[in-house]
């Protein structure tokens, strides 16, 4: 379990994190999304005890990471850009991790070793970004972590390996009940793997919600009428947007979709169905509701 309370971090005059609080229950996958410079990597570095926070605390399984670094023997960490000792080979790194992490599992390592095709003896300085990420995943999944913290874990991987890695993460949670915290730009990846999603922008968590609840809160109803959409329905306060294509209307709305469906049925629609929205669409409307333009944030 991860618990972050009122975390702040300043670099000189600039405030990078501003009162970040969140909680991830055991066995859940938390996805943190945000643009470059939003504070994702800084947050993760503080969670891992590398950076000291200006204020606030980070608890992993009830222990303060900065006070009790031993708790990190239960934590796997894959950085955005993995730095290992340039003169070390894969075998050296394996030896280092094996001696460091008490839960290191040889069977799991052998199993993963077959997936990741890495040269045993080539030194790390000759590794590409993709190979670095693969090595990091290999090492950190082999240590059987209770908590896995990942910063852009699939960057530098080809599409096949990317899919494999995401599968591994889901498998890890299912098999070991691992708590996963993943920061990424890629909303599609989050949609496939996460239970809970947080949005960080300018060092603040804008929202932090269960993915299913989020999907329930913003719904899209597709409806067609012979004489067009009754205007009073389009003006309801819970309607976020109405799109029209011929006689078919797409109504994006916030919560209360059951009530809206009942209202629509009263007007004898030719077509009436609820459509699942993509995470990206949900974000666009969710951010709009908070007074932010999602597209502006994500493309910064």
């Amino acid at each position, binding site marked *: 379990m991860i618990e972050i309370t009122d975390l702040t971090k300043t670099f000189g005059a600039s405030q990078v994190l501003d009162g970040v609080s969140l909680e991830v229950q055991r066995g859940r996958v938390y996805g943190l999304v945000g643009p470059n410079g939003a504070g994702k990597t800084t947050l993760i570095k503080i969670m891992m005890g590398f*950076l000291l926070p200006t204020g606030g605390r980070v608890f992993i399984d009830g222990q303060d990471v900065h006070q009790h670094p031993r708790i990190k023997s239960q934590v796997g960490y894959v950085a955005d850009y993995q730095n290992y000792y340039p003169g070390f080979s894969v075998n050296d790194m394996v*030896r280092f991790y094996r001696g*460091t992490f008490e839960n290191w599992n040889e069977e799991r390592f052998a199993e993963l070793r077959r997936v990741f095709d890495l040269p045993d003896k080539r030194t790390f300085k000759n590794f590409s970004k993709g190979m670095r990420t693969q090595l990091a995943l290999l090492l950190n999944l082999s240590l059987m972590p209770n908590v896995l913290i990942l910063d852009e874990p699939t960057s530098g991987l080809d599409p096949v390996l990317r899919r494999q890695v995401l599968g591994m993460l889901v498998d890890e949670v299912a098999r070991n009940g691992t708590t996963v915290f993943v920061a990424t730009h890629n909303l599609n990846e989050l949609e496939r793997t996460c239970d809970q999603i947080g949005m960080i922008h300018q060092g603040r968590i804008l929202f932090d919600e269960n993915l299913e609840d989020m999907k329930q809160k913003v719904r899209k109803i597709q409806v067609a009428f012979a004489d067009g959409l009754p205007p009073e329905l389009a003006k309801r306060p819970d309607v976020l947007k109405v799109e029209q294509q011929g006689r078919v209307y797409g109504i994006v709305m916030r919560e209360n979709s059951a009530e809206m469906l009942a209202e629509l049925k009263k007007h004898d629609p030719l077509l009436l169905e609820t459509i699942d929205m993509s995470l990206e669409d949900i974000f666009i409307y969710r951010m709009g509701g908070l007074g932010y333009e999602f597209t502006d944030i994500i493309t910064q």
Partner: protein
Amino acid sequence: MNSPTLLPNKTLLWKECRNGWVFFSLLFVYITFVSSYTMLTELSRYKSALADGWIYPIMVTGDLLAFHRPELGLFFTLLVVVMAAVMIGQERDQGTFGLLLAMPYSRREVLYHKFLLGLGIIVVAFGVNALVMSGLYWGHPGVPIPFEVADIWAWALRNMVVLAFVFAFTVLISTLSGTSVGNGILSMIFLFFPIGVTGLIVANLELWQVHHYEITENLLHIGTLLTVPSYIIDRNIIHSYPLAYMYTVLILITLGTYQLAQYLFARNPMEHNGEVLMFSGFEWFFKLGVAVCFALLVVPIGTYRSGLEPAVGVIYYLVAGGIFWVLVTLLIKWRRKA
């Protein structure tokens, strides 16, 4: 908080050795064999001279023995400074502090194992060196070697104690800021600062024809005494005091320096992989120090035997200090930009 333990972690120690084994091996071999090899060649030369019927001058033999040569002490100091600066700076240069501190190791443990390895190399290298030289001594009973085995061990012990301080001091400087090169340069400057600054004061006193023998001597003596590496460059410095007392003080200072390094490292925010200078609020103080020292150095050199008027001299000092203040400021700005 985890209770601190003095027992080393094998994996962390292995990592330290593996990461810098080329440099450490070279340093170890050099320290171990530089003087014993010289002794061996001298003994061979002595023997062959005797066999040829020559009377080999013993005093020359004594002078040539490496452990009486002052430049060797300076070189050992430089090597140990480089070793400590590389141990810490390399983690920054490689960006691997992030990796280490994301593991279940405390900052205290990370620094402790570097300290342990550094001290280990110094102690073992000088220990082996003394052992080899003692063996050579005992292996040549007929040769009138101008020192005793006890002298060899006393020399080794002096080097161990002094270099342990040099190592701890460089670790302290390195925990605060900078790359390997920066750490090394800064450590050398501060290690030789007392003798340097007293030398500058004496040179400037002479420029203004303040001839007071006692003041000059005392200043230089204090400067030398505060310059710990000078103890292995000129053994007379330390030998004019009770050795047990001097060694006890040195060991205590070394432990204190190491504890201070631990304390500061634990509080280093580690931004940019630890490159942020702690106490950046004191930057003006360092710049002032550089400006004053360079003014004290440049004015006596530039105005040597020119019969300077005091009023003009003050202007010279201010101008030289001002120029160096600006130069250091520009250098810092350029470095940050880079």
